[in-house]
């Protein structure tokens, strides 16, 4: 079922959560895109004379240990967090479609080999894999994105492979009747629209998870590094101030929590829509 058909379904029980999820995610997207202009101050402007101020009229949420406006940093952090997750997702989808498509399409030894590879990657928990790749590639956002993508792609590859195989079965029936149209064209025509729906659901449910990994790695100092205004980094910076200025730590975490919840809500609602006959969710 195509994505468009998915969204046009008549109102069901879960429509509220779908609406709320979409609204929240759109808000986040807006913050990410327009954050720089919405932020009242320059998020990177260090002013040691203004460090660790409580909330006041100029700095609505106060300042951090380097005098930077907390609110601005939180807003700009949306860009980093959402941006990095979207990059990761793009990479995961690319790898998944490529490997899954090739594996399902070619079959045989190639399929066997690629699926063994998938299994291997599926065994490693994300963090262990990320540790390894960051050792290899160094710290920094792009490397963390690669590391997380490498630990998630296998699930997508398997799903794509399954759908391609199912489609191939149907293909042979068609092929006997319609000689001429290239297999690639038909694969594009039939498989991709059918895949889009389930992939969308899987991806939306996964985004929250990926976001937690990105901020977790940045928190450890393995991903985005200071002075970047990433929420995980901000929490790490604020560790020592937990006694005196807990908001420096709690608010970035709240942003992570809120964002992940928005995506999870959307993901849950989309999954319910995709399979409403299942009463279980």
């Amino acid at each position, binding site marked *: 079922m195509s994505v468009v058909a998915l969204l046009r379904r008549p109102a069901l029980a879960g429509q509220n959560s779908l609406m709320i999820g979409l609204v929240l995610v759109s808000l986040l997207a807006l913050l990410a895109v327009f954050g720089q202009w919405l932020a009242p101050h320059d998020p990177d402007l260090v002013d040691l004379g203004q460090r660790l101020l409580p909330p006041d009229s100029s700095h609505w949420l106060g300042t951090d240990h380097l005098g930077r406006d907390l609110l601005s940093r939180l807003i700009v952090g949306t860009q980093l967090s959402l941006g990095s997750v979207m990059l990761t997702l793009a990479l995961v989808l690319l790898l998944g479609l490529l490997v899954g498509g090739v594996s399902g399409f070619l079959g045989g030894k190639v399929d066997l080999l690629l699926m063994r590879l998938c299994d*291997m990657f599926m*065994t*490693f*928990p*994300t*963090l*262990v894999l990320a*540790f*390894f790749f*960051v*050792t*290899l*590639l*160094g*710290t920094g956002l792009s490397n963390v994105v690669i590391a997380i993508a490498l630990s998630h792609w296998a699930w997508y590859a398997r799903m794509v492979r399954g759908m391609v195989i199912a489609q191939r079965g149907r293909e042979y029936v068609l092929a006997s009747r319609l000689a001429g149209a290239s297999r690639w064209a038909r694969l594009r025509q039939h498989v991709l629209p059918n895949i889009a729906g389930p992939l969308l659901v899987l991806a939306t449910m996964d985004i*929250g998870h990926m976001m*937690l990994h990105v*901020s*977790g790695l940045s*928190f*450890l*100092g*393995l991903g985005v590094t200071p002075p970047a205004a990433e929420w*995980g980094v901000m*929490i790490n910076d604020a*560790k020592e101030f*937990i*006694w005196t200025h*807990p908001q420096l*730590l*709690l608010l970035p*975490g*709240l942003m*992570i*929590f809120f964002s*992940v*919840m928005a995506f*999870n*809500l959307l993901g*849950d609602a989309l999954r319910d829509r995709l399979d409403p006959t299942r*009463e*279980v*969710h």
Partner: protein
Amino acid sequence: MLRYILLRLVLLVPVMLGVSLLVFVLLHLGSTDPALDYLRLSHIPPTDAAIAEVRHALGLDRPLYAQYLSWLWKALQLDFGTSYLTGRPVFDDLLYYLPATLQLGGLALACTLLLSIPLGLVAARWQGRWPDHAVRAVTFLGVSMPNFWLAFLLIALFSLWLGWLPPLGRGGAGHLVMPVLAIALMSMSINARLLRASLLEARGQRHVTYARARGLPARQVWGSHVLRNAWLPLVTATGMHIGELIGGALVIETIFAWPGVGRFAVSAVLNRDFPVMQCFTLLLTGLLMVCNLVVDVCYAWLDPRSRLEGVSA
């Protein structure tokens, strides 16, 4: 059954070899020169002469396969080299720190299972009514919460504000509560949701209708036919949980100054301490594979379909 276990154990060997080779090759073909890293961590200025000397000392001037084979030979004798950073044998250090991590991971797993089961049961039993909604709300929050943030929240609440629990270090039971909770919350939420879904699906199966039709009392139907079948997806999920819990432990340890493998590994990553990373990756891989094996064996024991070479009549 025994044959199945033995077969799986035997298969472990080539996989471990393959992973060790892959890890080795990747590390040595990586973007940096291990010799430079070594010199940097030993605080020796990287002159050309020093680099050449170190390269020879570390055997980095030999062909790659020779390096791998000599590494493998030593590894089989449990000698994984010495850390570039500390100069101490890697294996000894890792083994020293591992129990603390396993303690956290193990307790978190127990916590996950013990807490998620009643939650999932309650939610499925009273589906659609307030206990179900409560469980779903709680698990939804649990799945969305960053574990390191939760750890700080717990510290703020229980150490700073209430003063009930010590915020740092390893010691008695009081030191375990917060780290374990922080690690376990997400897996517990996932597991509770999974159990709920599994129970609801099992309940709708035809064999449950037939059991009721035979006059079996509700409790027996629930116990023998719904629960008994609903466990299966959970067993498979446990393997995944173990991986996530270990990952969680790695992060949480740094917050609570827990003397485990996590902090050790993080510093190794930041300092590109290759011997440590190599051993760490292999050790964890081996551990996870053994855990997966145990999980698969449990699954095979619970589900006769997967272990019997089913020959139909």
